[in-house]
């Protein structure tokens, strides 16, 4: 009996060791497949996956070391106005972000449905290619008045709720400044509103700054808005994956 137990014990040990070797082999195979010359997104992030139009897209850098950006986004000069170099932040309180922060956003807020990546360009631009995970809400939709159907649709998508009439005491406390929820305006409740990252063609593009200023005018909290100033130009300069949206 004890011999059998010992045998089973030994078999289990052998199995465990084999499983260990096997998993190490699988991990190694994955590493080998990436290769030592693989150019990652960041030091500790080879690539990321984002969902675009229901499909998982791998976002990575172009692996060709001789790759050079060509075409429209390689141009350094554009007529100014209207295509003038934009300030780092389009409005006070709005945080400007770079690619690394955008990768993090894609892996956290965007994946969890707590954030939206918005390509604020007009559809003519969007259909030529966009950043995976983006939705297209042209800046022209976000620079309208609060009762405009396009604004209402966008706000619904952003998780903004129309505010219910506050009670007598609530109103009183707010008037006295004792109860100030920064996410409440007279018309809107931004408490559950999503974090938005807006971008357009790049540092010389005014479309997303206009959209951001429009959102702020509508009362959207500045701390729930991010501005990816690099836009399509810098995204492509780093050789990052773009997608051509479906019609």
């Amino acid at each position, binding site marked *: 009996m004890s011999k059998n137990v010992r045998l089973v014990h030994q078999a289990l040990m052998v199995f465990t060791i084999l499983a260990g070797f096997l998993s190490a082999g699988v991990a190694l195979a994955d590493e080998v497949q990436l290769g030592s010359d693989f150019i990652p997104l960041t030091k500790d992030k080879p690539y990321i996956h984002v969902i675009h139009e229901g499909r998982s897209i791998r976002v990575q850098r172009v692996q060709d070391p001789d790759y050079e950006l060509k*075409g429209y986004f390689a141009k350094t000069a554009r007529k100014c106005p209207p295509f003038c170099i934009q300030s780092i932040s389009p409005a006070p309180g709005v945080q400007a972000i770079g690619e690394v922060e955008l990768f993090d956003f894609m892996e956290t807020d965007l994946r969890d449905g707590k954030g939206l990546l918005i390509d604020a360009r007009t559809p003519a631009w969007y259909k030529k290619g966009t950043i995976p995970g983006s939705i297209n809400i042209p800046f022209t939709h976000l620079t309208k008045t609060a009762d405009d159907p396009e604004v209402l649709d966008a706000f619904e998508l952003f998780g903004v709720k129309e505010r219910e009439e506050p009670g007598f005491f609530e109103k009183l406390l707010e008037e006295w400044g004792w109860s100030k929820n920064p996410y409440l305006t007279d018309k809107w409740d931004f408490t559950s509103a999503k974090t938005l990252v807006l971008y357009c063609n790049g540092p010389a593009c005014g479309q997303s700054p206009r959209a951001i200023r429009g959102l702020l005018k509508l009362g959207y909290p500045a701390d729930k808005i991010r501005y990816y100033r690099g836009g399509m130009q810098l995204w492509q300069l780093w050789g990052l994956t773009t997608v051509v949206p479906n019609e």
Partner: protein
Amino acid sequence: MEGGAALHSWRWNRQFLSSVLGFLLVVGILGYSAVALSADDYLSALEAEAGKVDVELNEPDSATNPGTVSQSAEQGGQALQSQKKEGLASQRANFESLLKKHYFGTYGFYRKLPERSRQEVFEEYRRGVGMDKIRKKIVSRLLQH
């Protein structure tokens, strides 16, 4: 006499007020159209610029995002058909080199397929089908062949 002067003054004031109102109205209309025009001008300039960007379907050498997924290289370039054809050819070459590099066995099977099936597999790759499915398709086409 006083009544006449008052009437004259009232008429003058009325004329003055209507002139001022007329002037303000004209300035308002002009100002509004200037703003509207500048917004329109901006949109027109945007549309004109958008026309300068073209979509190419080149894939980078190590592309793992198939189908409608394109990388930055695809954004540049001109809209000439011949270049697009070249782009497709190079994309297919890239797809084949990707197979050869990462899935050598599958690449061997792919080579044995007739051109029609190879083209079919490549089209699937361009449509965004995952590599697992692409590899299964190659094997299935080989078995059918």
